[in-house]
């Protein structure tokens, strides 16, 4: 059988997506093949410090890579050149698409709208279950891309009638400068920006980012340092701090937890996680428990049983969380938004599709309970 490789598929998808989009600037259609060096994408990084002997220290994420001249940080997309740190992926867009906002998933943010979704190569973690490893775990020059700078990104989003730009698929923290500038450009055109992130970012860049984004979804990997360290090459503690900062900054955010059997599916761990969310972030933060499928470096664990997800969801509801969803289970009632007061189904979903939306001005039509979320475009008066 002539199998279609995942990377070829992703590249083809990107091509197809772009070809279906009328690009306002011919330059945006310039495709950059793997192996083609291109200085257009090289921009000075914003969060780093200079050290002795032309070394630098990255201050963008908690890894705080100390990088010698000619070397790159852990993410593989930032490089020290003679004592200055550069991002290599400014506008080097390797994936783009128009997605339902529900795909992110953001369930309490402009439901039923589309997000112009972009990504570059690279990530500051290495999750062994990464669904997009063929872009997140590769260096920029190893992945086909399009030249699409921040201005073009905002223009195309507007042209596609998307109220939102989503920075997603890989890890937007590593393409911070491009994301930040595109978000600023988007705002000028009345287009919001959402980041789909692992939350592994330092406080200062995060707080600056919160000023230009309209929402964030955090992949909350687990509630143990062991899982973060051994399965994701990251740390839990900085992510907890990120969540606290998001609450302080009053930006809308939702959480997704991918449940991987035997690794992060214990009752005890998930009860503790739910309690922490409730006590530190409040009872109104939407939490999505999502079904894992074998991929990348974890191929020997079968998909998460539905019963496991339902059990974990019940623990979260028991902990007092009001909006707990199940993901990657199309058609399951756990996809619906229900009124926490009268249990009326407010938004009925199947997968990424909205079947019905009963909300009236963000309230339950039956009991008038206000449902937290961003129900009106925040950049439209």
């Amino acid at each position, binding site marked *: 059988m002539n199998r279609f490789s*995942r*990377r070829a598929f992703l590249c083809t998808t990107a091509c197809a997506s772009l070809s279906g989009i009328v690009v306002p600037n011919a330059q945006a259609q310039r495709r950059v*093949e793997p*192996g083609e060096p291109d200085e257009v994408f090289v921009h000075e990084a914003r969060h780093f410090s200079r050290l002795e002997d032309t070394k630098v220290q990255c201050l963008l994420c908690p890894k705080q890579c100390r990088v010698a001249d*000619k*070397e790159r940080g852990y993410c593989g997309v930032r490089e020290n050149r003679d004592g200055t740190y550069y991002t290599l992926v400014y506008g080097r867009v390797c994936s783009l698409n128009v997605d339902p906002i529900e795909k992110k998933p953001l369930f309490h943010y402009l439901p039923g709208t589309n997000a112009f979704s972009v990504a570059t190569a690279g990530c500051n973690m290495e999750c062994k279950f990464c669904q997009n490893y063929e872009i997140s775990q590769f260096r920029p020059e*190893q992945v*086909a891309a399009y030249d699409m700078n921040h201005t073009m990104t905002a223009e195309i989003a507007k042209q596609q009638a998307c109220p939102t730009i989503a920075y997603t698929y890989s890890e937007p923290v590593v393409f911070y400068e491009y994301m930040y500038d595109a978000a600023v450009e988007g705002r000028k055109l009345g287009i919001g920006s959402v980041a789909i992130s692992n939350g592994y970012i330092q406080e200062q860049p995060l707080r600056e980012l919160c000023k230009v984004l309209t929402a964030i979804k955090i992949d909350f990997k687990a509630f143990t340092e062991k899982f973060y360290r051994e399965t994701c090459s990251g740390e839990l503690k900085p992510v907890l701090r990120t969540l606290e900062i998001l609450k302080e900054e009053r930006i809308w955010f939702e959480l997704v937890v991918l449940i991987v059997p035997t690794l992060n599916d214990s009752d005890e761990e998930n009860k503790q996680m739910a309690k922490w969310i409730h006590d530190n972030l409040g009872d109104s933060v939407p939490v999505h428990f999502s079904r894992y499928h074998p991929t990348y470096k974890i191929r020997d664990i079968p998909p998460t049983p539905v019963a496991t997800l339902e059990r974990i969801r019940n623990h979260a509801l028991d902990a007092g969380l009001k909006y707990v969803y199940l993901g990657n289970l199309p058609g399951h009632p756990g996809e619906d938004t229900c009124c926490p007061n009268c249990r009326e189904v407010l938004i009925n979903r199947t997968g990424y599709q909205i079947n019905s939306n009963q909300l009236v001005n963000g309230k339950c039509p039956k009991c008038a309970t206000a449902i937290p979320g961003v129900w009106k475009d925040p950049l439209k008066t």
Partner: protein
Amino acid sequence: MKRRRFLKRISSAGLVLALGAGSARRKAFGESAAISTGGKSRIIVARRPGKLLVDGKPNPPEISDLLGRGICALLDEKDCGAAWKKLFSPEDVVGVKINTLGGKGIANRPETVRAVCEALQAAGVPPQQIIVWDRLSQEMQRAGFEIVTEGDRPRCYGSDALGDRAYRRQTESSGSIGSCFSNILSKQCTALINMGVLKDHDLSGISIAMKNLFGVIHNPNRYHFDVHKDPYLPDLAMHPPLRQKLRLNVIDALTAQYHNGPAYKAEYTWPFEGILLGLDLVAVDRVGWDVIEARRKEAGLPSLKESGRAPEYLQIAEEKGLGFADSAKIETIEVT
């Protein structure tokens, strides 16, 4: 030349050439690093101060001659051709993995690489079956190498020249390493010469033989943290396809750097004017480390251990059976 045509040419050539390569030499040498009496690993330190570099420029006749003497000493042969034939056959497709990150200042010299290629050809390996390579063609060009993809000359290009076929699709695991390997190594070559340089490295302590192999995987940045004491480098070298193909280590040490690597820093380089040869890449690193330490001491710099980046991975490599890190198990022969 059109990019697509170029890609088709180099990938199909590699595939065709890789077929039918013999394994007798692999059995003879690839799995065994120790060839000296007493079970020691033999490492050749070949030097001609004042002759390999003339006015700072490589001197090809001297380099070729010294390389020949070195390989003969390594393999107990009187005839150079016979020595090279012990390791490589006319059926082999020989990859010569060089190190060009440091640009012209601290990278393999084209003249040294040419000497190796000429020796291989003299031993019967057709020029089209020699592939000089590194990660990126652009870095190779910056170091003075001409990109060659056709004709009657050895090929010379980076993994990235293969475009989206630069690396294998699936990750392969080897201990703590999980990476996609270059298709030049995986699909095009039947044998490998690991041709590093002799330099200090900010994270691994040294970049000589083992560190050069980071260039065969797609994601070395994942393994740079504490790489001087982690098992990443030994685990990579243990990867069976790599280990089976690696026949020889030739370290281009015409110029060496004892501090502030891996980038070229002129103030920390010196004309070592030497070539290190060995079948045991761990022992090569051990000997090279000693050279760098001696120079650091002369310059009044703290040792790598005092700097917190001694290459402890060498001991891990020895424990894994990859080679010898203990100097007592290494026979160092000086050749002039």
